[in-house]
């Protein structure tokens, strides 16, 4: 199915969990946050949260700054 991750369209397998998506992109879930269609998704729900087609997902993490 297709979703938008950080502004880029992406094909992912059906039933992918948010946790899997994050680990795939960020290496680990540590230090990351997720916004799906404008809503912050609490960390504890990531394992069971199944990504649905067409969702806009923002994956955010800590980078050097300030």
């Amino acid at each position, binding site marked *: 199915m297709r979703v938008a991750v950080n502004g880029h369209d992406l094909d992912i397998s059906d039933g992918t969990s948010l946790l899997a998506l994050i680990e795939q*992109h960020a*290496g*680990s879930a540590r230090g990351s*946050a997720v916004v799906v269609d404008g809503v*912050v998704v609490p960390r504890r729900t990531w394992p069971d949260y199944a990504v649905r087609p067409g969702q806009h997902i923002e994956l955010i993490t*800590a*980078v*050097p700054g*300030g």
Partner: protein
Amino acid sequence: MAEHIDAPFEIAGVRLTSRLIMGTGGAPSLQVIDEVLAGSGTALCTVAMRRVDPATQGSLLDVIDARGIRILPNTAGCRTAAEAVRTAQLAREALETDWVKLEVIADERTLLPDPVELLDAAQALVADGFTVLPYTNDDPVLARRLEQAGCAAVMPLGAPIGTGLGIGNPHNIELIVSDATVPVILDAGIGTASDAALAMELGCDGVLLASAVTRARRPALMATAMAAAVEAGRAARLAGRIPRRHHAHASSPIEGMPVL
């Protein structure tokens, strides 16, 4: 500022073992960040929140955690209170801390804070349970309003971010210090060690800097310089400097000159 040299440095009741707060931006590599954190002896460092970049090598958080340094996420790049509040909430979710260095800038050219948006964001974040450390200009009135809004510290600039111009208006910093009942952290504008020492001599409780160290020719060495400068400035403040005199004052006795 606490009047004992060994008075602990605390923000929102949390004791920090160093009065030098490090930004992690501007360094060429994680390796340099690690050396800089080590050299500075800092107990608190800032990070920014950005989209995950799969190309990134290594983990910033691992480097920071390995040194036992507390993380202070910032809202760098935000232009409105709404953006800043949202960014702070994401940082809380990502880093499991309710501390935030609040930045709400007015434009990319000066990177100066927008006083109205900054105050609005501070009020909203305090209401939402955050421990707010606002990056502000050197206006004593705005600093007071931020403290009244419940900020845990006020962080006035010495000069615009990354300019290295030092403390443009020491008189304003003195006014802020004389009024504040929360810690005052000189944030932005520091160019070299004497600037950091001066900040402490003016009565600041701490100094936050990044570029002055991370963009120096030898970052790790500059980090140690800043650490020593903050100590020196604080000790000088507490030691009570001599007054400025218009005329000379001999340091050798006038009497007892031999007749030769």
